[in-house]
């Protein structure tokens, strides 16, 4: 589904990603871990199409298409979803209006008729329950006045509404207490199918107790330096990242 080869990305002439490779297939959950400032969020933003980053080399293929040819909204319509680390507040745009616009623009892209008001509201109700989001929140402006946990649950809610093929969750667990973490993880687990894939970016192993990954990758200084199964996450938790720096050093990074 997603194939990243030798990806180099810079911002303000500073290279963040330096030859990253990643293969994600349908039905898989990949976790990307690593210390701060190694490029995890950059990777997420570049896949979603944030234009402040410059791709200087390499390619990202998604379902065989070169993502660089697609705008952020086209990528979303093709089925890519980014769960933001810091969801943006948009005063004056109601959650309902925002989601309805998004759902219908995606339907239009696919040549479908817009959802009727009733069908849309029914879908909202159903998906809200998934992440235990109250109506109070959906009646407000997008993310405005939401607590940290509410913002993150709102990201999962949007994901549920848009039913992407590939969801990238950028530190969705950061700032969550254990109950909120459970709600978010449950939401993701319920949405897992054989046809979609998840890339879960996280700093801590604790999220991976709830969302069991098929693969764990360690991102360090712009490259994936180690990949393994979920046991790698426990190893990292135990040993920290220091030993990786040494192995990265010895492997010539």
């Amino acid at each position, binding site marked *: 589904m997603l194939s990243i080869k030798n990806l180099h990305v810079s911002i303000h002439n500073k290279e963040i990603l330096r030859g990253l490779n990643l293969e994600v297939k349908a039905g898989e959950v990949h976790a990307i871990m690593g210390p701060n400032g190694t490029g995890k969020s950059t990777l997420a933003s570049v896949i*979603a*199409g*944030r*234009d402040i980053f410059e791709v200087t080399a390499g390619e990202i293929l998604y379902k065989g298409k070169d993502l660089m040819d697609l*705008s*952020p*909204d086209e*990528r*979303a*319509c093709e089925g890519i*979803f*980014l769960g*933001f680390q810091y*969801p*943006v*507040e*948009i*005063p*004056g*745009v109601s959650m309902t*209006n*925002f*989601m309805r*616009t*998004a759902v219908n*623009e*995606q339907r239009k*892209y696919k040549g479908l008729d817009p959802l009727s008001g009733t069908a849309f509201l029914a879908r909202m109700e159903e998906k809200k329950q998934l992440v235990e989001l109250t109506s109070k929140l959906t009646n407000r*402006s*997008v993310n405005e006045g939401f607590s940290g946990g509410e913002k993150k649950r709102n990201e999962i809610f*949007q994901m549920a509404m*848009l039913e992407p093929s590939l969801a990238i969750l950028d530190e969705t667990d950061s700032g969550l207490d254990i109950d909120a973490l459970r709600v978010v993880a449950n939401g993701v687990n319920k949405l897992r199918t054989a046809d979609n894939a998840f890339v879960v970016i996280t700093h801590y192993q604790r999220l991976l107790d709830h969302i069991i990954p098929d693969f764990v990758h360690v991102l360090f200084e712009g490259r994936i330096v180690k990949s393994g199964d979920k046991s790698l996450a426990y190893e990292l938790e135990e040993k920290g990242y220091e030993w990786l720096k040494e192995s990265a050093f010895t492997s010539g990074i």
Partner: protein
Amino acid sequence: MAEGICFHIRNLNRMKNDIQTNVISLKEKMLHLHSQHLTGLNEAPFMKKIRENALESFQKNGFPHNKMEDWRSTNLSKTLAMDFKQHFEPGSEPVNIDSIFSCDVHHLDTYLITLLNGWYSNAEKPLNILPDGTIIGSFAKASVVYPEIFEKYYAKTAEDPKNGMNALNTAFAQDGVFIYVPDNVKVDKTIQIVSIINLDENILIQPRNLVVVGKNAQLQLVHCDHSVQHRASFINSVTEIFIEENAEVEYYKLQNKDNETTLITTTYFEQAAHSRLTSNVITLNGGLIRNNMRVSLNGAGADAKLLGLYLMDREQHVDNNLFIDHRSADCTSTQLYKGILDDQAEGVFNGHILVRPDAQRTQAYQNSKNILLTDKANIHTQPQLEIYADDVKCSHGATVGQLDPEAMFYMRSRGIREDTARMLMMYAFAAEVINQVKILPLRHQIDEMIYKRLKGELSTCDQCILDCNAKRDIHFEIDLKKI
């Protein structure tokens, strides 16, 4: 009876160098017209006195010009150099207003008053007295029938030496709208004033409106401007609104004029103790617009909320000039003006708050927020706080920016196309003001108009036979990429 004010610019360069000379010339023409048509008017001595004083003031001050601090960013010289006609009597042909105007605000049930070319249009019934005692009618007729009201209120706010346009209006005032709401009356429907210009000539009109809202009374007033013929017009209107003790007024001004219009409005609000005012000025189009809002908080506990929204493009110019005079203790005032400027459009916001020595515990807030869609659009925003009391809370803020790129990316990452995302953002920006329109059908209509305006469609009403049917170049589109 029509008289031309002809003024030709033979030397454009000279005009640029010496605006003053031209203005003086036009001033002399106005003075001449006045002596021909208005000095001999048969009117009450006190009315005559007011007119004379105003004329004297205009003679002394003349037209505003760029060297005046308050007019630094709005240049009238182009308008003053044009050739306009003035009419000193209403048109003699009976006019069926329904045939030229129908308001398209759905479900908006109002007492509708129309001014045609500055004159009260219903000649057969110049005064309408409602069962609750409210009087709605012609300014000219009311000044004769209710001299005691006029003597008490008319031109009492006009001592505004900086405002030559106001003096000019008072010197030339003949007709307009008169509204009187007795004490303790809540007017059961919104009163709507529609000022229509329908003449196939360039015209200068100076409507004069007087509104008195008695103690504990309530009034919702909607004031709209329309043009039928697309000729240049110069409108200099003055409205005085007196809000007596504990009375409440909602005032809405809707401006959607063509690019040939110069519209100068001056609105005075005189507020007694514990009175409440919400004013909302919405400007969607217009050539050159200047709105002077003068609020005087005369009694303790009075509250004024002044909101504004302007969406301008091409070479349109809008200038909102506010003066809030805190004369009494425990009063509150809030100003929130927001604008979106495209192309080379220019906005001016001047908010002057004066807190006099006795006005302790004043709370006065001001906020001007603007979005510029191009490098060439610009906004001059200037707060002015003048505080002579020591126990006050005042604040002002001004922001000028583009649409938030983070929010744009967030929306696009959900599949919302760039132009739709821009629309949503601009709409959201405007919503803060629109949502405070309390008359629901009006809010929906304004909502619709703004939506169309932002999409680049004409925002005049759908089915009305005004601007929409006019066969002319409609260059209202905003490039969607820029929205």
